[in-house]
């Protein structure tokens, strides 16, 4: 499966409906959105590697417990590092950083291809990258339209932010509110569905 196909036809958020919570809650600013995407990708790779190391030591009935516990260990470690070096970003992520431990998308991506698929690492990596791309896209859109800016990074004493919408254009603050996120998500999901329908129709016409 190519990145393009994973991003549009089988998008983890809009097509499969996985990990919607962080996409809606943390995409009000671009920096929190892409950081969440990168953390999710990192957690998928770390979680998958760690689970692979200890998988054979546990019966399959309790493997889900093991996966969540391992994921929580990595998140707790990340929390300690963030608390020490990036407290501002830790506050921006709020309750949603520890909540990644029960994120359905990350758990699905860790399990992806465990049934003997040769490309399981590639598949998980692709899922993580598609999630990163999706959350970054939604974050950029919501911040540009809602605040008129694009914040790449916000650290104590150093902020990289560009003003995109200047006068006479005014940002629509509704889009950075949770309600705006829900409505935007609904329309984006509909847009992705139409793209998939068109792609499938084109493929059927080509085959016939």
């Amino acid at each position: 499966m190519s990145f393009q196909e994973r991003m549009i036809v089988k998008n983890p958020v809009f097509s499969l409906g996985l990990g919607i919570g962080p996409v809606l809650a943390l995409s009000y600013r671009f920096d929190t959105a892409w950081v969440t995407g990168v953390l999710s990708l990192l957690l998928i790779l770390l979680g998958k590697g760690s689970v692979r190391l200890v998988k054979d030591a546990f019966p399959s009935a309790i493997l889900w417990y093991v996966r969540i516990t391992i994921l929580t260990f990595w998140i707790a470690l990340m929390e300690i590092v963030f608390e020490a070096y990036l407290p501002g970003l830790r506050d921006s992520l709020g309750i949603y950083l520890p909540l990644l431990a029960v994120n359905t998308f990350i758990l699905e991506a860790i399990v992806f291809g465990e049934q003997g698929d040769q490309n399981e690492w590639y598949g998980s990596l692709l899922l993580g990258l598609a999630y990163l791309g999706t959350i970054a896209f939604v974050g950029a859109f919501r911040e540009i339209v809602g605040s008129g800016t694009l914040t790449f990074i916000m650290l104590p004493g150093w902020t990289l932010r560009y003003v995109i919408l200047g006068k006479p254009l005014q940002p629509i603050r509704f889009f950075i509110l949770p309600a705006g996120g829900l409505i935007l998500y609904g329309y984006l999901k509909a847009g992705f569905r139409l793209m998939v329908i068109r792609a499938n129709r084109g493929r059927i016409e080509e085959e016939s």
Partner: protein
Amino acid sequence: MSYLGLLVTLLFAQNVMLYYFLGIDSVEDMKDQPSRFFMQEGLALIGVSSFSAVVIQSIHLFILLPLGLPYLKTFSGILIILVIGKATNSILHRFRISLNPWRLVVNSLVFGVSLLSLHGMYTLGESFFAGLAAGLGYLLALYLFDVLQEQFKREWVPRGLEGVPILLVSAGLIAMAFYAIDGALLKRIFG
């Protein structure tokens, strides 16, 4: 905030599903499951979220903080939820109610409410009421989604928006209506 204030805030002004997006993944499964299933799950989640919020807050206040181990709160919280989720499923099984135990554990509502209690530094009573209010808020949102879904079956909806997209757009409008119940106003009314 008073218990009543907490209840109204998490039920309407900051509804767990429409404001914090906890448990929003359930909306994606609504088309595949009967509404009775979600009501059963919602009732189970009220119990699990209020009980786990109290237990996690107790462990944080009486064990982790005195020992100087606050950074273990995420780890201990997840372990407690895994145990409570499994125990609840066993209890429900005795009453011949079968729920997927993973739906109770992986539903972000349960851990999310505990985290809200920890971040808000709630007392044990407040944590319990936060869990209760969050569960009721989740049930309210699910009920609204169910009513909307039934209504949209009878109405014309553009093809792309059929199903979950139109539900989410409507949910956004409901969330906007809930913003009318201002948090500061509630604090003034309920203390």
